[in-house]
């Protein structure tokens, strides 16, 4: 291989830089952050003509001052990392403004290649370039390109290789700043040569220019007071001559240089590139129409994300369900192995709960990528700016906050579109107050349990509204305390509308999705395991209640029920046919629970039971038993098919599909009844009056033990420990325990309440849990639970993503602590006031 080259891509925002980068590197990209800042760093590799070329996509900038984070990052990279070649992507349809950055890159004296992107659009507008002549005047090779159609990529690669291999020489030209400025530049360069250039290893002329421009970064890097003194004097002299700051004169000269070069080489019939764009904008940014159009589009985004995403979410849920089932096979049926519990409940449950949101996240980022790449996002910011300005936020903040109603995680990732760090952090910190989708099951459980039907809607609306109001207040407070200082002056380019490229949009979407997946694989995995341990340990050796007794009682009831069956089947009262057969079945199940399905003991038990039943079938009244077994199998099978269809298809009882399934079931059952009219009812009696209560009793024992385990676990103890503190909010230890689980993911709150109330793992529709809740708490407490869940502790995925996006644990923990305190304070106020008013 001829060698490695590093190539940096620079350019204005909206110059099509990302498309060029995608064309150059394809999918071989790596997304990270520049050290210490939240600016995204994209790198990608390409092997071409024997060179291993590493491309770095610098953030889009208008110049190389130290004004914004992006500009500092781009400048720092070029000066300190010294790329072999810088490629400046220029929007050829807006040449003069774009070449302004090129003049500064020229001054840095790194080998420069200019890419005239969108040269097709420029030509269509009637602009003709004398590329050779222009290239000579600017002192850099120019490659015409149509990045949207992937035209010009190979030419660019050829030029890169030619420059790197030395076949082409880089011959930079100087911008002449006029006699006065040039004189001062010479003075400063001389001073730098005598006293040292400080800590920025760059070309002296560039350094001198930046010092004259009073550039903060350049000044900070100079150690010598003589140099700084000289610079100050030079600036004073120039200000006297021009009556203005030197940087204004310098930028004026740069534009002069650019327009001079263009005058000789660019012929334009001056047709604005905005003609169509302006027509669209006449509607989209219209005083009256702008806002409705914006709301309509946001509604579409929301719909796209959460309705199309629903089906794939179910698939992922099913996939994880299947995975747990597959893993469970490796253990004996009734095993309480900690490893099984860790894998199934801890890891698959925890990580699965997060990955379930992946379809939403991909769709959402697809929508955002489309809005951004088409140019609409800038218009949205324009429309929302007036409103958001009143809260002290940027117009663009509205979009992440809206997404927050779906899920905080993609919302926080979407804050990347905000350039200003203060705006970004404020938005990030208040996003969890937008009540996310995962909190809905909590409201859905509680509201119907405590409030009359007419209040359902208003109650839910009030909860959401409280979140929005708190977010507005919190944003204002943050903006006037921690993130004080004028908000970034609002200057933004409105790029012409463009049709987004398929590839670019997909790459955009996948990058974000991948980041999210990586998160689920690392931090969330770790925290899931910790939370699992908290809710599972320590185990209890002796239970408070003697469950064996209860179990024996249930078994006795079962046998008594079986004995009564004789009458239903016209058997003599003393016949023990059923007792023997069904008793054997029950014992077999118990025995098998200790073994794996494939173990020989398991199979032996099955065989033993089968042969006993076969023997009984041959004996006295054997035909009755055979028929009983057959009818029982048919009914059970018919019911299983019905239940499976309902669960797998998630069919609601009021839907027409449900009616169809129900009538199918009835037809099958009627068929069975017609074939075996004498025993059909007897079998139903067995299934529903004997077997079902027994199963129910076993389940209840399991749930009560689970509840005792939970109470005894660390989470349970923390819940008890929290009780004195949360007592003031009307909460007991049970809510405290469920709060620990809610930290993993908000919706876990419902499941854990189910466990502590011994009704098993409940969901939002659990009537059994509602009844228990209603008996235990007052409506005031119920409202306080919802309030607390709305405000407090963002879930762990949120904490992890804030940590990543803000690049520090500080803000993640600040948000966690701040919101929890806020939740406590507000719930305390509401509960105590409510009690004083006699509502509790």
């Amino acid at each position, binding site marked *: 291989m001829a060698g490695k080259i590093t190539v940096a891509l620079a350019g204005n925002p909206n110059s099509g830089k990302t498309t060029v980068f995608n064309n150059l590197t394809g999918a071989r990209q790596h997304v990270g952050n520049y050290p210490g800042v939240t600016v995204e760093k994209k790198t990608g590799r390409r092997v071409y003509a024997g060179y291993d070329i590493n491309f770095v996509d610098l953030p889009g900038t*208008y110049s190389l001052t130290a004004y914004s984070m992006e500009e500092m990052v781009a400048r720092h990279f070029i000066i300190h990392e010294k790329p072999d070649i810088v490629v400046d992507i220029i929007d050829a349809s807006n040449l003069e403004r774009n070449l302004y950055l090129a003049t500064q890159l020229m001054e840095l004296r790194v080998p420069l290649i200019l890419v005239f992107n969108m040269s097709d659009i420029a030509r269509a507008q009637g602009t003709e370039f004398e590329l050779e002549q222009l290239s000579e005047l600017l002192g850099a090779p120019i490659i015409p390109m149509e990045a949207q159609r992937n035209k010009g990529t190979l030419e660019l690669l050829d030029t890169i290789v030619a420059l790197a291999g030395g076949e082409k020489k880089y011959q930079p030209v100087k911008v002449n700043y006029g006699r006065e400025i040039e004189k001062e530049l010479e003075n400063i360069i001389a001073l730098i040569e005598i006293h040292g250039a400080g800590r920025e290893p760059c070309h002296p002329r560039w350094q001198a220019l930046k010092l004259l421009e009073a550039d903060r970064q350049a000044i900070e890097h100079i150690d010598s007071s003589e140099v700084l003194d000289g610079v100050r004097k030079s600036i004073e002299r120039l200000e006297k001559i021009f009556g203005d700051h030197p940087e204004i004169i310098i930028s*004026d000269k740069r534009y002069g240089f650019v327009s001079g070069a263009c005058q000789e080489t660019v012929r334009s019939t001056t047709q604005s590139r905005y003609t169509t764009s302006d027509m669209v904008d006449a509607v989209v940014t219209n005083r009256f129409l702008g806002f409705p159009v914006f709301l309509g589009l946001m509604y579409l985004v929301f719909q796209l994300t959460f309705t199309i995403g629903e089906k794939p979410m179910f698939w992922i849920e099913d996939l994880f369900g299947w995975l747990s089932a597959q893993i469970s096979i490796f253990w004996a049926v009734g095993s309480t192995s900690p490893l099984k519990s860790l894998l199934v409940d801890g890891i698959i449950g925890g990580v699965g709960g997060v990955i379930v949101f992946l379809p939403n996240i991909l769709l959402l980022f697809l929508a955002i990528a489309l809005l951004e790449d088409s140019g609409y996002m800038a218009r949205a910011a*324009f429309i929302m700016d007036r409103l958001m300005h009143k809260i002290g936020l940027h117009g663009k903040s509205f979009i992440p906050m809206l997404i927050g109603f779906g899920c905080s995680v993609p919302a926080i990732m979407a804050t990347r579109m905000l350039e200003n760090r203060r705006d970004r952090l404020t938005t990030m910190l208040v996003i969890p107050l937008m009540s996310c989708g995962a909190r809905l099951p909590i409201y859905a459980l509680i509201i119907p349990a405590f409030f009359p039907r007419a209040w359902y809607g208003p109650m839910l609306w009030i909860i959401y509204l409280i979140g929005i109001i708190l977010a507005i207040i919190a944003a204002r407070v943050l903006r006037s305390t921690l993130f004080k200082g004028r908000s970034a*002056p609002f200057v933004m380019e409105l790029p012409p509308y463009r049709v987004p490229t398929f590839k670019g949009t997909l790459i955009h979407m996948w990058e974000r999705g991948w980041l999210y997946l990586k998160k689920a694989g690392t931090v969330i995995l770790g925290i899931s395991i910790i939370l699992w341990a908290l809710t599972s340990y320590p185990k209890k050796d002796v239970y408070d209640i003697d469950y064996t007794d209860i179990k024996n009682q249930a078994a006795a009831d079962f046998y008594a029920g079986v004995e009564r069956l004789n009458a239903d089947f016209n058997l003599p009262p003393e016949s023990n046919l059923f007792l023997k057969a069904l008793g054997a079945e029950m014992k077999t199940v118990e025995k098998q629970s200790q073994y794996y399905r494939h173990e020989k003991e398991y199979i032996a038990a099955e065989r033993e039971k089968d042969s006993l039943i076969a023997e009984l079938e041959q004996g006295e009244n054997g035909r009755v038993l055979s028929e009983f077994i057959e009818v029982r199998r048919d009914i059970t099978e018919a019911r299983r098919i019905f239940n499976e269809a309902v669960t797998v298809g998630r069919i609601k009882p009021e839907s027409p599909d449900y009616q169809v399934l129900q009538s199918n079931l009835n037809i099958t059952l009627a068929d069975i009844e017609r074939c075996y009219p004498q025993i059909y009812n007897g079998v139903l009696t067995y299934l529903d009056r004997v077997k079902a209560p027994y199963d129910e009793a076993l389940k209840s024992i399991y749930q009560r033990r689970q509840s005792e385990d939970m109470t005894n676990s660390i989470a349970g103890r923390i819940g008890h420990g929290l009780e004195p503190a949360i007592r003031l909010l009307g909460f007991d230890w049970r809510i405290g325990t469920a709060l620990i689980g809610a930290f993993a993911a908000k919706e876990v709150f419902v499941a854990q309440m189910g466990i502590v109330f011994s009704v098993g793992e409940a969901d939002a529709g659990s009537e059994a849990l509602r009844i228990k809740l209603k008996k235990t708490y007052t409506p005031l407490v119920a409202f306080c639970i919802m309030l607390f869940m709305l405000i407090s502790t963002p879930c762990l995925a949120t904490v992890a993503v804030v940590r990543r996006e803000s690049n520090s644990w500080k803000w993640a923990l600040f948000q966690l602590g701040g919101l929890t305190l806020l939740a406590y304070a507000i719930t305390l106020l509401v509960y105590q006031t409510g009690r004083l008013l006699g509502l509790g």
Partner: protein
Amino acid sequence: MPLSMVNTGRRVRLLTVKAGRGLQARLAAMGLVPGVELEVIRNSHHGPFIVSVKDTRLVLGRGMAHKIEVE
């Protein structure tokens, strides 16, 4: 007069930007240098507004527009 007073559709010439040096440099990089011609595309007298400079559309906050002197 300040840019914020200019009505939609009028063309004006930029005189000075009364702002900190950093912001001046930023605006210059976006094309807002003294002497440049601007066209006001939208000024609704509330909220931000849109100007055209060097065939680029820029959105300026109302506060910004107060600081830009034009003729």
